[in-house]
């Protein structure tokens, strides 16, 4: 059986995933993904009635058990400097990043 995820498609996926992968690591990952897809293909064998809808949460969440929406109240974190200090690079309370590339739309 040919691979669902070809090297070309894999390169595209790695770009979408924002991952710069070494060739050897990429080949291992691509092989694993193709094996996983064989398991996913098992789903295609299941007879599915038109009436079967999608379930995005197992437990039904009717309004009576969903928590009420919170009041829209500002709750500032007391130590913003601690949050900024977690950034790999910061300056005067701003987070610093490399050049942001611009794309003409």
């Amino acid at each position, binding site marked *: 059986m040919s691979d669902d995820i070809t090297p070309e498609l894999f390169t595209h996926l790695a770009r979408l995933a924002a991952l710069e992968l070494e060739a050897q690591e990429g080949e291992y990952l691509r092989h694993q993904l193709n094996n996983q897809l*064989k*398991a996913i293909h098992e789903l295609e064998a299941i007879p599915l009635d038109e009436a*079967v809808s*999608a379930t*995005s949460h197992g437990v039904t969440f009717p309004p009576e058990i969903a928590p009420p929406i919170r009041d829209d109240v500002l709750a500032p974190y007391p130590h913003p400097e601690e949050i900024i200090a977690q950034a790999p690079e910061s300056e005067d309370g701003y987070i610093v990043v*490399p*050049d942001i590339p611009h794309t003409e739309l």
Partner: protein
Amino acid sequence: MQLCDLPAYQLVEMIKRRQVSAVEVLESTLQRIQAVDGLPGSLAAEGGALETDKVHAFITLTAERARRQAEQVDEAIRAGEDPGPLAGVPFTVKDIFCVRDTPSTAGSRILANFVAPYTATPVARMEAAGGVMLGKVNLDEFTYGSSSESSAFQPSPRNPWDTSRVPGGSSGGCTAAVAAGEGPLSLGTDTAGSIRQPAAFCGVVGMKPTYGRVSRYGLIAFGSSLDCPGPVAHQVRDAALMLQAIAGRDPRDATAANIPVEDYLARLEEEVRGLRIGLSPDYFRITYPDPQGEGFRQEPLPAAISDAVMRAAGRLAELGADIVEDVPMPHTRFGIPAYFVISRVEAASNLHRYDGVKYGYRTPDYVDDLNEMYRRTRAQGFGPQPKLRILMGMYVSAAQYSQQYYTLALRVRTLIRGDFEAAFDPAGRYRLHALLTPTTPTTAFPIGDVYGDSVLMQYADQLTVPANHAGIPGISLPAGFDEAGLPIGVQLLGPDFSEALLLRLGRAFEMVTAEDAWRQRQPPVLNGVRG
């Protein structure tokens, strides 16, 4: 028997009666950790290979923080105050929960230097109930695995019953710690079986509550429609005590159900006569990828495991429970294929926040622009398991127009939920109060045997994942040993929000087997340690 080997409920009574102080309990537990745990997991450690007889549950031990908490409990008792239902009980936390001012790593290089600025709701509730947090325990990277081997923090945890074997995962640090007496309680998470499967492998109790019963606030997200925090404990009463503390609505989690929490302890030892317990042939067959690489085959469960389930059913029948056989659960085998799609889409979405900008790891390499920084940071910061989940999430999302994988998986999820609804329907044919199943298709496997084969590893969760798709609660209970001396777990699954009933059934099984020879065994890692 040392203080650290006593169940949590007994420690609470002793501490409140001032027979022992919270500090003494803590010191006993810290001594046990010192004796059995060995090197904590770290990014650098290769030396763990030399300590193959240790448990290695911890990443971060917060002994001083724990001493301050224990002293506060003792002070409160001296002042005549009630420190709460977990007064002085030492507990560990899977390192996937944020705890303020502690490293909260998710077992990943990308979060290795992250110090959480806030505390997850379940942890905060345990501390408010008087619990004493010992520290953070190891796990599969971002919880992605069933053996705890994929952690970036090595050495990964080992099974206290045989340290050449895995403790299971992803909450392997939690279950190994509890089994070895490194705190009687641990807070884990279960997305496909990550509490129940390692609980079975380590011979302890592990419960996945109903989705939404315990708040996910402060839990580093994997599959947001599947993740459930829950208790790991030696005994069912302790699991009930812990669940009582952590369950309930939380304004900070919009999926935490607004339903009153039952009293899990009040009716814990009520009789189980007349309760209907189902057995399904679909949980006695296991599915495996063919080693030749083509297709999947089904085979019977190992005899030691199916025998343990049948024995458990027999013991519950002795207590007057009605055993209902041949309950069809025909979509069980599709749990893993559907999970391969749903969990990957959710994981890929949740992992996009790790970008080297706001916190965590950033590549030290020189880069030309922001996009290159993202790509290098993520390639260097994530291990193979998160990468696989992101890439598969991208693939099934991108193929949505042509293949409809995601919609297909969500529709299969409906069928899996439907199997349970039919079995538990009070007006239906089976009218079950609970379904009794094996927890795992095998007992604990040797370290290195499965890791690297991402499909085979995922199939370790095949008997636990249906409950995550359906959202229903499940509990794994120790139920004996196989011929190699490895623990076997059985699982009880029940309808939405039936935790009290599952705990009651679990406690009944525990009581009726209390004098069995297998109950008297202790993990070999404690030989010469326990005294």
